[in-house]
């Protein structure tokens, strides 16, 4: 009898080995362990045995039953797992296909750079102010110490709207507009559009400037250098060399032009910097007392500095763009690079 049991077990295990479908495994379970299964049959006939024999066979029978049940369960699990894995593999996608992206546009590069400039000065404690694009001759020139019939008017080719109105040629009028309304301390940047009658690879009839000015008691040329060097280092990198060169703007004195080490060749000399290793980046100076006189500031008490920079110029340097007109073509193939 025990041999039979062991044979049944072996047979069942042998059969189980070849099964790889869940249904077959369940059928096998029924065949051996079911109500009419061969093991059940043995169990059911236990009563007919002698008590000693019954106990021995009974124990073995139970052991075989537990072992078979476990083997069947494990075989079923294996098949289930294989089935699950197969199903997962069936879901395979070609992950090399491009993704389905939510649409993403771009800010215009000029505005992107404009925002960067604003951010730097906001962190330095400046406040943003705007002025009109159509300006009076007074604010654009006269109050900035550029009287009529002064050769300095030739420095900026002006679009006229009428005898007294021009398209502002720079953002500097915001200085005077501010001084008329506020007393020092003043720490302002004025970004905006400006226009000049000029159009070629490096000149656009309309472009963007950021004007900045700071007025208080005891503001010095050294302070001007401090703020502008901080700006250039934040904009172009801490290691960029900066130099100040005497220049002339009627509304500042002393006036300077600021050069930074060429960011293309790092000062070695290239086509962009015309082999000089330097790039002109902005104009600045101590606000001319003549401007303060126009707004009745006490020129003995207050000093201040002002600076102005072309946003397109900075964007061109930053992204190595060689033609200013690209900014206003608004070609998507250009815009989506930034």
């Amino acid at each position: 009898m025990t041999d039979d049991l062991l044979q049944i077990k072996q047979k069942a295990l042998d059969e189980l080995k070849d099964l790889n479908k869940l249904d077959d495994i369940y059928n096998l379970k029924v065949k051996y362990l079911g109500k009419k299964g061969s093991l059940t049959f043995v169990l059911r006939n236990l009563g007919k045995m002698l008590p000693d024999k019954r106990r021995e066979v009974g124990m073995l029978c139970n052991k075989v039953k537990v072992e078979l049940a476990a083997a069947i369960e494990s075989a079923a699990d294996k098949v289930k797992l294989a089935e699950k894995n197969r199903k997962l593999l069936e879901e395979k996608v070609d992950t090399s296909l491009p993704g389905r992206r939510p649409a993403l546009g771009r800010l215009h590069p000029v505005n992107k750079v404009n925002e960067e400039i604003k951010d730097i000065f906001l962190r330095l404690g400046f406040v943003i102010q705007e002025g009109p694009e159509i300006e009076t001759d007074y604010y654009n020139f006269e109050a900035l110490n550029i009287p009529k019939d002064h050769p300095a008017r030739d420095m900026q080719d002006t679009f006229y709207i009428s005898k007294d109105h021009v398209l502002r040629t720079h953002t500097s009028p915001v200085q005077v507009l501010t001084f008329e309304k506020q007393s020092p301390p003043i720490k302002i940047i004025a970004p905006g559009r400006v226009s000049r009658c000029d159009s070629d690879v490096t000149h656009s009839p309309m472009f963007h400037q950021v004007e900045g000015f700071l007025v208080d008691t005891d503001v010095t040329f050294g302070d001007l250098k401090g703020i502008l060097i901080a700006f250039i280092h934040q904009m172009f990198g801490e290691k960029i060399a900066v130099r100040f060169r005497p220049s002339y703007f009627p509304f500042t004195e002393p006036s300077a032009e600021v050069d930074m080490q060429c960011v293309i060749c790092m000062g070695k000399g290239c086509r962009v910097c015309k082999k000089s290793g330097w790039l002109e980046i902005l104009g600045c100076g101590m606000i001319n007392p003549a401007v303060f006189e126009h707004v009745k500031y006490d020129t003995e008490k207050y000093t201040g500095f002002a600076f102005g920079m072309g946003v397109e110029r900075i964007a061109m340097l930053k992204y190595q763009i060689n033609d200013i007109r690209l900014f206003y073509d608004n070609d998507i193939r250009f815009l989506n690079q930034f």
Partner: protein
Amino acid sequence: MKFTYNWLKEYVDVDIPADELSEMLTMAGLEIETLTYLGAGLDNICSVKILDIEKHPNADKLSICKVTDGESEHEIVCGAKNMKGGDIVALAKKGANLPNGIKIKPTKIRGVVSNGMLCSETELGLADEAGGIMILAQDTTIGKPVIDILGLDDYLFEIGLTPNRSDCLSLIGIAREVAMLTGAKLKTIDFVADESSESVSGAIDISIQNASACNRYTARVLRGVSIKESDPIIKSRLNAIGVRSINNIVDITNYVMFVYGQPMHAFDYDKIMGKKIIVRNASDGGKFTTLDEKERELTAGDIMICDEKRAVALGGVMGGMNSEVSDDTKDILLESAYFDPVTIRRTAKRLGLASESSHRFERGVNPQTVTVALDYAASLMQKSTGCKILSGIADVWPVKYESRDIKARFARINKVLGTDLTNDDILNLLGRLMFEVKQKSDEHVLVEIPQYRHDLVKEIDIIEEIARTYGYNNIKVTMPKIPAVSEKRSEKEVTAAKVRSLLVNNGFYEVINYSFCAHKDLEIFSGDLIDRRIGVLNPINEEQSVMRMSLLPALIETVKKNMNHKNNDLKLFEIGRSFMKGDSGEIFETNRFTGIITGLCYEDNWSNAKKVVDFFDIKGIVELILESIKVIRYSFKGGASSKYLHPAVSTQIYIAGEKVGEIGELHPDILEGYGIDKKVYAFDFDFDRLCASQKERVVFRQLPKYPYVKRDIAIVVDKGIACD
């Protein structure tokens, strides 16, 4: 302002490398824009004498020149015809690398070896055109490098001069600056003018009727000049700075102008009627023909130089045709004057006639060298022609130039610059500038300003000179000590930042278009408002002739341009100003926020449905914009009023009962005008109103306790009833 290094060296004893000098001048405020070596490409070219010319055996148009450089003879094949035996010409030898890129090496030409090339002025980069090879003067030494013969071992400097530095519109002015920077000594210009016994007083009578416009008028009379080619040095120097040589007399007036900065004019003395020069104002509407053969209309502000009967020059700007020096001229009246800068500027500006002369007068010439320049020019003319110089200068000088003193306070200098210069430091710097100190105390210094520095008037001007001489880069870097302030970004700034980032994150590209546009754009997009347009008086072209009143035309133009590059799926926007006149002519600048969409909704992709945008895409964006900036009480009412929108697919945007914009499909007729055959949708906000509109304050609301219940209700209504 251009000059060559060798020319400059006549006036200052300087010998540092040209690039070093260039750097020094740049850092002193005289920005050198270009520095060019004039002998570039002229190595290995020397003078040779043609010994013999034979015909080329195999080519009719070529000849074989036997030439000598004094040491050896060479055979050169040449295509030119203008030379003859005995001529001295320029030979480019093996190794020469000409300015036009030609590299010279022995070459077989039609079977004959040519050991170099005889050069034309074009090939040497000296002229744009040439009628053959360059023939040098007969007395030229043979075997000498052409660089030396032509004086081209020299550098051309070009200064981008700022308008304040009129003193540097002259070689001696630049020499002064170089002396200040390097410590080099200035050289004096030595010249002799032998005056004859005849006095100038009997030859010319000068009177000035408008002394405020002509402060001084001086003249000399020269008899027996001959008009010919200029002295080679004068000619080559003028050539080098780009001034065309005309004849010895005109060239000398130009040359002296560049040396001293004093413009001069030479009249044909015999054409001056009545031996009289009268300086007076022009009369309105008068006509005058200038040297360039153009008839000019005059106004009362112009300075006229007249003889007894008629005008002979437009004072300070340009001479007249009627008194021009010609080949037959025998006697010369040489003018050197001081004209009022503003008067000259007005005339030159009005007539669009900016000459080297007006350029200097309007910036102010040196009153101290008016007659020095006159004498120098007369002496050069005498040297050139052997003419007689009548004794004395005819000089009428109604308005004397007063010298100016400026007081500068030591403490103020340091206060503005942030330096701690001692009084002695400052006095030293003033010394380097060659400013005379008239008086000094512990607190201040009184400086006499040289008369050539018209730009120095106030204390701050002296401070700038001190800073410039001290060196901007020697001033210590500091940070301003200014109280911290706390200020918010304006509502407009904040709103702009929000909507821009919203649109960019929803696939929109930001564009920037010009603030001006074409008149036809207004006709289409501005309707009746066109009467309130603002024109530009001097536009570059018609496309930029009037200030824009809407951002849409340029956006549609942008769409069109991109479609030309096969980019048909576009979402674009711009925030910018539009311009309009008010009832009484006042100018309004309004910020507008305008967007446009066309083409596919989603990126054209292997799996996306190719759905094309429609009205509800643009409306959805508008709703998103409004909600992102927390506008709650918005609504859409009726069809749009703008004629450029589709009458049935458009609506107006309201916030709290106020119209803030419109959305809709662009009218097919409009698009047809642009050659666009696809549907395009746009929104257009009055951005200022959008920013000013009331925003919802965000307050947390409790979450509902129960899940929501969905009910589907269908109601049948007439087709004409709107959804809301």
